[in-house]
């Protein structure tokens, strides 16, 4: 009998004998109470999401009412005169996340292919474990490491190398003085942080590709890489894209580590060497010193924007992953 059949009704078996009727009646009440209880717990999840949406929207509402669409497009953030525009933070959120994904995606897919196709069995578990552990490291620890280890390395070695030795200093992307705290530092730290997410989803999706797909390619004389490139990756493509978008969702909302290395300046600059802001780091950095209700409301409106952004990104990602990995009804 399947779970679905069991879930069908209270009386899954044959009709009870008369002597047992009283006891079975008690069981029916127990069953009903139990079903109701877990239904309520399950409904807590949609309710929670709705409550979050409501809270975030109501907290940011005063700022949206005051500034309207210019909250999203203006780059003036002047707490003294009560003018708030979050364009630099939105820009910084997108740029740091895109930089992170540009670095993390090839690595993550490489790791996932290594783990699912090439790794010798004795190496598979340890490497998978170490990569998974990256996701368990608290954000604030990444931030601490970023401030005292990563940023100095970038300032002393990487930035001069990119600008000077490679001669990229003339391009707008790598121009300006190298202070250290910058969009580049944030992007790099985010890349490390989202890598385990992208790689875990990619690995899961690759494992869901049928064996026959691989064997057919090998039987046609493909090399192992050609098998992966021509037979496995196309099959898993939308799931991998889902994993990347999931990583994007993580990167967009990451707060502490970014706050600690991005420099926290309301600036729109094309250079990755320049400090910036993200929506999340804006809230984290300014909340404790927010002066007046409008300032707080503006910060919350940044939160509303972030919420909407990540909600959409996550919904798309989950849908793509589900389509490949398990289908919409669980495993």
């Amino acid at each position, binding site marked *: 009998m399947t779970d679905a059949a069991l879930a069908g009704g209270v009386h899954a078996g044959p009709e009870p004998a008369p002597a047992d009727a009283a006891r079975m009646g008690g069981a029916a009440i127990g069953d009903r109470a139990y079903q109701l209880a877990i239904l309520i*717990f*399950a409904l807590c999840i949609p309710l929670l999401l709705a409550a979050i949406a409501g809270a975030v929207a109501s*907290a940011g509402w005063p700022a949206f009412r005051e500034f309207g669409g210019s909250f999203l497009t203006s780059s003036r953030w002047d707490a003294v005169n009560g003018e708030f525009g979050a364009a630099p933070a939105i820009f910084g959120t997108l740029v740091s996340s895109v930089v992170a994904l540009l670095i993390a995606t090839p*690595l993550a897919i490489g790791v996932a292919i290594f783990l699912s196709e090439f790794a010798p069995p004795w190496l598979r578990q340890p*490497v998978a474990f*170490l990569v998974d552990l990256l996701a368990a490291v608290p954000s604030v620890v990444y931030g601490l490491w970023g401030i*005292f280890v990563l940023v100095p390395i970038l300032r002393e070695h990487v930035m001069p190398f990119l600008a000077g030795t490679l001669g990229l200093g003339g391009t707008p992307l790598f121009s300006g003085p190298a202070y250290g705290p910058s969009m580049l530092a944030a992007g790099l730290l985010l890349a490390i942080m989202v890598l385990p997410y992208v790689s875990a989803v990619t690995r899961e999706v690759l494992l869901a590709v049928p064996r026959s797909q691989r064997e057919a390619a090998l039987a046609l004389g493909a090399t192992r890489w*050609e098998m992966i490139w021509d037979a496995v990756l196309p099959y898993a493509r939308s799931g991998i894209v889902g994993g990347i978008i999931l990583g994007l969702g993580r990167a967009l909302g990451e*707060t502490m580590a970014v706050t600690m290395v991005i420099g926290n300046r309301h600036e729109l600059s094309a250079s990755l060497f320049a400090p910036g802001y993200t929506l999340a780091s804006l809230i984290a950095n300014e909340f404790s010193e927010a002066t007046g209700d409008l300032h707080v409301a503006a910060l919350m409106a940044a939160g509303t924007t972030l919420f909407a952004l990540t909600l959409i990104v996550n919904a798309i990602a989950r849908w793509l992953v589900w389509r490949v990995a398990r289908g919409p009804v669980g495993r």
Partner: protein
Amino acid sequence: MSSPATGLPPRARPHPSGHQRAFAERTVRTIRRRRVVNVVMMGFTYLAAAVATLPLLFILFHLLREGASSLGPDFFTSTPRPVGEAGGGMANAIVGTLLVVGIAAAVGLPVGVGAGLYLAEHRGTRLAWVVRFLSDVLNGLPSIVLGIFAWDLLVRPFGHFSALAGGVALGAIMVPLVTRATEEMISLVPGSLREAALALGYPRWRTSLTIVLRTALPGIVTGALVAVARVAGETAPLLFTAFGNQFWSTSVTQPIAALPLQIFTYAISPYDEWHAQAWAGALVLIAIVLVISVVSRYVTRARFGTGSD
């Protein structure tokens, strides 16, 4: 040159035409190129695996080097000292984290386990599909957004920060994690076990709670521990809920210190003593997270025979 037997020239033998030779060479070149590409790309995946494991090792190395020296008994027994005074610890922050995470578990565990039970028992239904999807979406929301939620719910109306608000924010983060862990662990319980209990005349609710849930319990506990480890390191939602506190406090209605908050405050401060304290705090935090991760992995593998997650 002719064949001795027939006197006729051999038909399809040696001396290929220029055409044939070019074709053969092209084939050899193609095969060689395909082999090179194969080796290069395999090498790339090995390299990617090496590069991906390096940051963790780096971080652990620096945490040990910088943090170990400030990590004495003082760290666990005393409260923070003012700037300029050596010593001091994070005892209040450790207790604060325990308290806030305790509240989070009290909020998040029942909801998560209950919802997980529902998803496991009604897996094919439309409602289960929606709940599962929303749970995944909830899991992907930035933690700072859940902080805003708790702030709007429990800080703004009352006019002051509190440990309770921090606990609720972290509890909301735990819900989707525990839900998925519960559902997956219950789906690993063999159906025959459930059927045997039902055949013996157990009511469905008792079968679910005393047989199925009981069997899946070690896995669920592990999932809950992983969720606890995850929220114990959360900082962003605590910034405007628990807020932090330099002094001793165990009141749920007052602002309270937490380990990650304290690390953040100290890390962005300009003082060397505080930096050292931040490293020590980070070392403690990562030790907690790593121990839970390793133990949970060991328990899950020992029980269900699968190493992967």
